[in-house]
């Protein structure tokens, strides 16, 4: 699987071809589309973007460094519907040139360093399984440790069915770090793009300190068909669009793509991580009494990288098989 920096891959297809706009139905020259941030020059329709295009749109040139590119999905349930889950994964990899539906890394926006995660909807509908959840969680944790803002650009159909409740629990895994970001005063800006639905919207994506959305993006918890089908009601106009959510107080701003980079930069300037008090260097003062565990942590030495789960390699492991507590206890036992 020798795919490196997969996000930089351009979408397949010749750039001199034409694409038909689904909104105004006009033909748009692909090269023109790319120059225009994939916005239809005729009607303003926002075409979906690849992760590489999104990075070009938002980040300072050349500033992005991917992290944890080696994370790969396995098939924990042995899931088979019409075809095996591993085959679906392989097909998605071939189709997109990506290893998974999300990428995270660090970069800068107008010179301000951020931890940023990005989704590509083309990879199995941007669905969140163990790997996507792990990447988002690591992105938040990096923001916490470095005290830099976190930014996530979502585009997802929700949790990945093929990993069952392991996917469902990614909602909690990706949300738990946000409590720590709050306590530490580190901002999180959530950017919702077309489409953001299901479990991704029902977890971190709805919890940004600021939530930006792209015009007309489909954003909702349940599919619109489900919503109308369930109750037999007619749906209100613009249901589940970014503008609908703005009106209902659920997003802060609907930002045209051409302004997204500037708006993000302004927000990062206006909402910096909290100033660190004098006692910052003093763990006891800033973080409260660390108690037993951190005492243990000091003794851990080389075991630490395992306990925080940052670079477990090789064979697939269930993360919860190696809780920090367990590792710490083992270390203590070894010492006794």
């Amino acid at each position, binding site marked *: 699987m020798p795919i490196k920096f997969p996000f930089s891959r351009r979408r397949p297809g010749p750039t001199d071809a034409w694409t038909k706009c689904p909104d105004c139905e006009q033909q748009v020259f692909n090269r023109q589309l790319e120059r225009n941030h994939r916005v239809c020059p005729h009607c303003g329709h926002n075409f979906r973007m690849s992760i590489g295009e999104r990075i070009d749109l938002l980040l300072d040139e050349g500033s992005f460094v991917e992290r944890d590119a080696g994370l*790969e999905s396995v098939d924990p349930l042995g899931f088979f519907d019409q075809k095996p889950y591993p085959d679906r994964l392989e097909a998605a990899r071939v189709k997109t040139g990506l290893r998974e539906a999300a990428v995270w890394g660090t970069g800068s926006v107008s010179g301000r360093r951020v931890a940023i995660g990005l989704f590509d909807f083309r990879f199995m509908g941007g669905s969140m399984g163990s790997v996507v959840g792990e990447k988002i969680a690591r992105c938040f944790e*990096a923001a916490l440790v470095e005290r830099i803002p976190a930014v996530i650009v979502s585009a997802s159909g929700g949790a990945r069915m093929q990993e069952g409740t392991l996917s469902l629990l990614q909602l909690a895994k990706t949300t738990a770090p946000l409590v720590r970001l709050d306590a530490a005063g580190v901002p999180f800006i959530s950017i919702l793009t077309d489409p953001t639905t299901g479990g991704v919207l029902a977890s971190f994506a709805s919890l940004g300190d600021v939530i930006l959305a792209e015009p007309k993006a489909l954003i909702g*918890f349940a599919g619109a068909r489900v*919503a109308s089908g369930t109750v037999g009601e007619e749906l209100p106009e613009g249901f589940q669009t970014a503008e609908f959510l703005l009106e*209902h107080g659920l997003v802060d701003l609907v930002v045209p793509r051409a302004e997204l980079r500037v708006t993000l930069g302004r927000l990062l300037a206006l909402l910096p991580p909290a100033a660190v008090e004098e006692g910052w260097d003093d763990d006891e003062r800033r973080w409260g009494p660390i*108690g037993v565990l951190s005492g243990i942590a000091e003794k851990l030495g080389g075991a630490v990288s395992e306990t925080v789960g940052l670079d477990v390699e090789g064979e697939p492991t269930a993360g919860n098989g190696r809780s920090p507590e367990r590792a710490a206890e083992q270390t203590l036992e070894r010492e006794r």
Partner: protein
Amino acid sequence: MTELVSSSQAPSAEQADAAWQRVQRARHPERPRTLDLVPRIFDDFVELHGDRLFREDPAIVGGPALLEGRPVMVIGHQKGNDTDSNIFRNFGSAHPEGFRKAQRLMRLADKLGLPVITFLDTAGAFPGPAAEERGQAEAIASSIKLMTGLQVPVVAVVLGEGGSGGALAIGVGDEVLALENSVYSVISPEGCASILWRSPEAAPIAAAAMRMTAEDQHELGIVDSIIDEPGEGAHTDPGATATAIKAALLASLARISRLDTETLLATRYARLRGIGVYRESDVGPRAALDEPSLRRRIGRLLHLPGVPRRPRWSEIWPSGDDNNDSERGA
């Protein structure tokens, strides 16, 4: 844990039948619901109402209760027992205000140092337009977030259907218990079948494929312990079911109450953080963060910074010496 990674194959007809039987028991119309069990488990209980924002949602119930004389906060989905009560309860599918009521009660528990006990029994959060308009996704997300940071012990019990985000919204626990015939899944088997098999009739196969039975969930590490049901299922003897749940809750709380606040939060975080199965190879730059101090790094990741000091619940819930934490995680 390598047994988790089996080679993919379609569920057999027997597997589908077995899984579907569990789904049907979990959905049995006479299966005891939260409010059937609460009076059998707790000494006293006062149901509180309302999210203080918009509406009282009868699909989620909750309030303080006494468990063996000690105060706790109980929150659960509430299905009906017949057509009328099911309409009133919206079949246990909450609107945003239900989750926001739950959050209010959890905050009260957090303030007073009461352990939180939740009962999961829902097909899922209600997906109607009104729910979307009032921020169903936000309500679930903020409920999950709140639970990950509660400074009190949290035990979740899957009673019947553990349906997706609507279940998880009140289901983030330090321990997650499940009744023998309960199920827990990322999407309803019908929904999964519709999308992946393009036919809701494939629901039994989807149920087997998603491994949604309590045993499967235990194997996957999502559920910590399974609570045996009497005879043919909980509906045959609600009293015995309640007794079994009570015993399991007491054992859970005794285990959890050993931890001080810092350790409790660190352990809950580690539990959630560790969920997921993946392979990690050495492609690309390593995740070497610009971090000066190893000690501070692990401290920051595991410990909630700046949390207010809280009463220790070990005084409320003295730790027992029974059941060590051999059931936790791996």
